[in-house]
């Protein structure tokens, strides 16, 4: 179950992970995008961590909403509104009385799909979110499941996002948004929140 404390811990861990892997994320993006995913994500998650450290939060909804506003105002490009929509969706769901982690992640995935209109198999972050969601429902989310979901984007041909412009040339590369989403869920496990 998400609490104010463990949600902040989760998102702080995510910010640290993105900062550590900033260059790698940009490297992935250079292959099939415009090469700035690491720089953009780390700018956003650093601002998020700062905002989360600055105030006292009463509810998980407030935490997620503050995180969303930081991400959508600082990341830019397409990843900003996509992560922003995910967290806004999660924040709305977190406000419901009898919610749980699975429903909150479901709301995040719905937010991303509503914004980006990607389907499973389009080689985007959606592929990771939906695989994670499925594993959560079955109580079987592990690092290995997440790694596999991220790696599984490599053989796909991109159908949404900047990489889709490359067509067949996108095949063989991991989707950078899938990788950063993978980090988010690995931090859920690392934070002991499951």
């Amino acid at each position: 179950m998400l609490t104010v404390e463990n949600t902040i811990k989760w998102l702080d861990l995510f910010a640290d992970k993105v900062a550590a892997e900033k260059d790698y994320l940009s490297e992935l993006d250079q292959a099939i995008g415009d090469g700035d995913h690491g720089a953009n994500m780390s700018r956003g998650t650093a601002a998020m961590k700062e905002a989360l450290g600055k105030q006292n939060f009463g509810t998980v909804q407030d935490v997620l909403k503050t995180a969303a506003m930081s991400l959508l105002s600082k990341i830019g490009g397409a990843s900003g509104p996509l992560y922003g929509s995910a967290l806004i969706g999660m924040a709305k769901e977190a406000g419901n009385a009898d919610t749980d982690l699975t429903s909150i992640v479901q709301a995040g995935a719905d937010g991303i799909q509503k914004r980006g209109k990607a389907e499973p198999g389009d080689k985007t972050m959606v592929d990771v979110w939906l695989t994670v969601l499925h594993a959560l429902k079955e109580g079987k989310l592990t690092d290995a499941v997440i790694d596999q979901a991220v790696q599984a984007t490599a053989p796909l041909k991109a159908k949404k996002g900047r990489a889709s412009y490359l067509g067949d040339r996108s095949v063989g590369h991991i989707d950078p948004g899938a990788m950063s989403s993978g980090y988010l869920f690995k931090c859920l496990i690392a934070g002991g929140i499951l």
Partner: protein
Amino acid sequence: MKKIINKPEDVVDEMLDGLVFTSASLIRRLPGTNVILRKQKSEGKVAVVSGGGSGHEPTHAGFVGSGMLAAAVCGPVFTSPTPDQIAAAIKEANQGAGVLLVIKNYSGDIMNFEMAEDLASMDHIEVKHIVVDDDIAVEDSTYTAGKRGVAGTILVHKMMGAAAEAGLSLNELKDLGDQVISSIKTIGVALSAGTVPESGKPGFVLKDNEMEYGVGIHGEPGYRREPIKSSKEIAKELTDKLRDAFKWNASDRYAILVNGLGATPLMEQYIFANDVSEILTKDKIELPFRKVGSYMTSLDMAGISLTLFHLKQDQWLDWLNVPVETTAW
């Protein structure tokens, strides 16, 4: 790169302050943002808000003022503004009757503006949007699914601004906007690329004797490269494409916009306009509204675009002609 700038990372910020200095009686900048607002509010009327990446000046902020845009949100060069900035513009610009967003069809712009629409709805502001996709050169481009939004956008700004001022409701404006957009088509040609200050290099390279038809306003690829032709020949190519797209008949009425892309002098724009007018006169279509100048630019790209707007109703011509108070119309 030779440019009259200070630091590349400061260009948008400094440009906006300069713009406000130029038109201080008409516009103001929302503090802490890259949002330009008009000073004169029209209470009880729908507010029309637009924006997008910078580098297309005078679009979009140059069209903020009475009778046109209530606000413009200015992103980094060729990059969409973020949802928080757009949401701030929506909130400030709202005059109590809701807000219509005019978005150019780029994937990043659409995601950021729609996200802002969601944020505004959490603040209980009624928002709708229309998407301009007037460029008939190519389908699906570097930053676009479908057709790109280019110079015809300024005619949409004018129409929506005038109709909002005339008192149309948000729903009526959206319907009108969709009809207007489907009646506007644009096609262009580039002679050389613009240079984004932060990259310092031209976005693409054409040989000295080359031009490319259908290049986008961010340097996206067009549909054909060939040796540079005369203005008459370019006018024939572009009007042929527009004729195919519109399938017009004699005595149909159109508005015409000849638009410079940034580095093409007015002299060449007038020469080209003259050549287009000869062709359209032969086709016997009527041109009751005419405009020539650099309105939707691509930094210092050399080239020109031709926009035609099928005036299906007399009212539409009236709305194009209503006087406005803006920096650039």
